[in-house]
Structure formats: C-alpha cells, structure tokens
C-alpha cells in the first residue's frame, strides 16, 4: 500500500489508547512519545498522524506499550469524510511546528551575541533541536526556512572565527 501524507486528504493513521491512571510512569512515557512525534490530538485518547510506514510503525509500538501497561490501544487507518477536517488537523499541526521553529529562530538570534565557543555550542544544540522539529513536521510552515537560516548563520559565524577549537 502506498500512502502519501500531505496530498490534500489523508489518509491518516490513528492511535486510540487508554492508559491506566496509576501507575503514572507508563502514562507519562506514552504522552512524551506522542508529543515527540508531533501528533494531532483529535480527542481524549485519540491521536493522529499523516499515514506513512514510519508513523504507522511508531504508533504500533506505542499501542503495544499501552497494552503492556494494562491499557487498551488500537491503530487505524482513516480518511476524514469531509476534507475540511483534514485541513483543520493539518493547520493545527502546522501552527504547532511554526511555534517551535519561531522559538529556534529566537534562540539562534540571541546566541549570536555569545562568545565564539558558547556560540558554537548553542549552534550545535539548536541544529539538533531543528532536526527534532523537522522529524515531526508533516506540513512545513514558512517559519521553517527562517529557523534553518538562523541556525546556519549562527554556525557559519562560528566557522569563520579561527580561534574556535574544533
């Protein structure tokens, strides 16, 4: 099956899940993983991502983790009946990533004033953060390019400085 995310209408992969309230550790672990994947939370215990081999795989393992913790979970492929729903979900995800990119841009601009060694360290940290945001960015906002440019500028500035130890 070939599934193309972001082609206008889905399909989506959905994770339905219910984790026992106690103990809290597995519940928090699941929550962290979903956050890291950049899911759209459709409702209580229902998360969505554009369907592809990778997103499906991640959901399948999280579902197993939920079951291992004594909860219930399922992984589904879905298409919204109304394209407007698709657009609303995509817009929600785009806005969430835009915020993250904006934070990276701001941090990069701030770090430009630091002495070379700290600047380089900040640049590397932000490059890693940018990679994390990229991985959960399914509908790229214009802020992506600005963030990329800001981090690149920061790293280039440090490269030009001969005193920076490698």
């Amino acid at each position: 099956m070939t599934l193309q995310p972001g082609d206008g209408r889905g399909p989506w992969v959905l994770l339905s899940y219910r984790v026992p309230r106690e103990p809290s550790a597995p519940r928090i672990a699941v929550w962290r993983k979903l956050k890291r994947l950049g899911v759209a939370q459709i409702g209580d215990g229902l998360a969505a991502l554009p369907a592809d081999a990778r997103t499906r795989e991640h959901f399948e393992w999280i579902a197993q983790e939920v079951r291992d913790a004594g909860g219930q979970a399922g992984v589904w492929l879905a298409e919204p009946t109304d394209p407007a729903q698709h657009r609303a979900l995509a817009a929600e995800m785009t806005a969430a990533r835009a915020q993250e990119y904006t934070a990276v841009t701001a941090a990069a601009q701030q770090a430009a004033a630091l002495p070379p060694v700290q600047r380089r360290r900040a640049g590397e940290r932000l490059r890693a953060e940018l990679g994390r945001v990229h991985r959960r960015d399914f509908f790229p906002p214009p802020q992506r390019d600005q963030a990329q440019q800001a981090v690149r500028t920061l790293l280039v500035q440090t490269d030009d400085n001969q005193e920076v130890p490698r």
Partner: protein
Amino acid sequence: MRWATRAGVHIDRAACAWLIGRFVDRHAEFVFLTDSADLGTDTTPFDMPGVDLSHHTGPDGHAECSFETILRRYHLDDPLLWRIGQIVHEADLEDERFDVPEAQGLDVVLRGLSMIRTDDEVLALTGPLFDGLYEYHRRAGVLGREPA
C-alpha cells in the same frame, strides 16, 4: 529454522534478519507476514508487537529495539554487535540515547530501498551492508581511530 516478521521491513527488521542469519541460525529462512494471525507454530516471530523478540524495556529501564533484545536473548555479547545495535536503536527509536549520527543516514537508505524492492531483496541487499558496518567497526577498534 523459520523466522517471521511483519512485511515492509525497515532498519530494525533488516538488521535483526542479518543478526539472526549470521550469528544465531546459519540456515535461517524468513517469512514476511501482513496478518500476524498467519504466524505458524514452527516459526519464531521477531520485531512484531506482542512477541518476545521485539521492543522491550532493558535492564537499565531504557527502551530497546528488537535487535538489542535478540542480542540479549541469545547472549551475543560481541561489543561490535552492540555498537551496531546503537545505530539500529537510534534509527528505529529516535530517542537520542546514543550519539550515532550515521543512524539517520542508514535509516534513509533503508526507507528508500523498501520503496523499490521486495522484502526478500531488501534482506539480500542489506546483508553486505551490515557485514561492512561490522568490519568497519572491527577495524576502528583495532586502529583506535576511524579506518580509512
């Protein structure tokens, strides 16, 4: 022996198949399932949710991928295999536990391959790839630096 995993192999399943074929069962035969109910009783499943040889929490409380689980279950303590395990772990779980930048590249290569080849072909192509990774890290260990 017959071994089964889910169809549509990616990094963890390709690496597990290599590990099984080279270090666990020289005569391993692999089947790829689209329905987990098709699992025969004479077949050992791996990297499928709910089976033993899959993702688990390791003894130190961290998540581990199926490759690492197989290393544990079959007592494969070769440090080179654990080094490859770090690459597979990062490519598969993406949890930044290990600093292995090559993981992302390998993941991209595997994803691309899986788009144009069958599962059997992916295993045939990635076998030498993992052999090469093993040799690279073996030489790196001997030299104490990255081999040319």
